């Protein structure tokens, strides 16, 4: 079964939202969360956990933190708690985020 077939489209979702995932075009429905859009897109891993294993959204309700993804430069954003927006730039995460190096290390 293709992941996309598990998701029904809400009747009120009209139009298309254009975003990018790792620089490549990705479309979603208005009102989707980032996590829902990614699952509908491919269901593939959207990040790697601390020990390097592949993860993607699981609970879809803000609890498990498995859906973390970089949204418009902000790492570790919960995809399931973030609504899609036109022009949004998503990046899959590999490993843990850093902190602002300019302040951190001289």
């Amino acid at each position, binding site marked *: 079964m293709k992941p996309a077939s598990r998701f029904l489209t809400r009747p009120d979702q009209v139009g298309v939202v254009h975003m990018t995932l790792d620089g490549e075009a990705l479309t979603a429905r208005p009102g989707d969360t980032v996590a829902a859009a990614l699952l509908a897109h491919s269901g593939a891993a959207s990040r790697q956990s601390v020990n390097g294993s592949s993860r993607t959204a699981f609970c879809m309700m803000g609890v498990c933190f498995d859906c973390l993804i970089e949204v418009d430069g902000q790492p*570790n954003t919960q995809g399931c708690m973030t609504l899609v927006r036109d022009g949004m730039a998503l990046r899959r995460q590999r490993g*843990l*985020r850093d*902190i602002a190096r300019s302040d*951190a*290390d001289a």
Partner: protein
Amino acid sequence: MPAQASDTTIIGGGVVGLCTALGLLQAGRRVTVLDGADGDLRASQGNFGLVWLQGKGAGFAPYAELTRDAVAAWPNFAAMLQDVTGTGLSLDQSGGFEFFTDPVELADFAADLERQQAYLGNRFSHEIIDGDKLRRMHPQIGPAVVGATFCAHDGHVNPLRLLRALRRAVLALGGDLKTDAHVTAVAEAPGGGFDLTFRDGTRHGTDRVVLCAGLGTSSLAAQLGFSTRVYPQRGELLITEKLGYRLPFLSSTIRQVDEGGIQIGGTKADAGPDDSETLDVMAGLARQAVSVMPALADVRVVRAWGALRVMSPDGYPVYARSARHPGAYLVTCHSGVTLAPLHASVLTDWLDENSNAPDLEAFDETRFAISDAA
């Protein structure tokens, strides 16, 4: 009639009770640990994980000595727990800072460390570092920090893995660990030993009883004739998202846990038995952390919690034998993580009254009676 007899029964299965049990098991005693309910207030599940010497016992030499011994015993203790249970504790004792944004507070604390230095002599060392020198060592430190103190003996450990390792070790050594076993009453049994009653009315007999019940200590202490009462002191903590960046320093209020999150803590409040967290305190913690290390500003907090410290009237540990009921003991402390190795070793000798037992007289509860009379 007591339902069953065991050598020693420990009431309370937090870090203090489990360490006490572990030491007795290693000495070949038969041990039962009775732990309360999941909803109990449990400092061992909410603490900061410091193995900390700096500032401890500045006003009370025996506590400075005790803590120094504990810190020195930690490497072997962690290795032993790893051997017995396979659980690594991520112990790191490479030194720790206290950061100050107020010069008066820095001067006061420096005076405390002088007193601690006088007690401990060459078994202690500390440095006072001014803000500019500190920023040359660690450019991450913000301009609001006027200075810091540093102690090379300080460290930290993963406190939840400590708790899990202790439980596993107690079970591995044959200890009987009963959960959801809230003791409501304890009394001397007519034929000797003690008779404990559980909430559901069932009973448990034992030769010796050690009261390690954290904030549940006071009522049982009264039943055994101990005068010690403990009270809760609330601390609130934050933890951030996990970072790949490694924080290059440890402090008593900001530490990076081995999995990558930065834990921020250190508040103290009298809030009675309420362990909930509060927005203004959380905001203050975050502000303070950002003033110490401005690069933390865009790092997100993922969880916050409150936990209650178990405080004796003067904040120091209590190791007391009951004069009225021989075979009954009371053990309680704040900083039960730091002191863990001693509770699993020299405290055993003290409970067993071995000839090599340490002199814990200074920690007897008689000190409260004396200060009451004064």
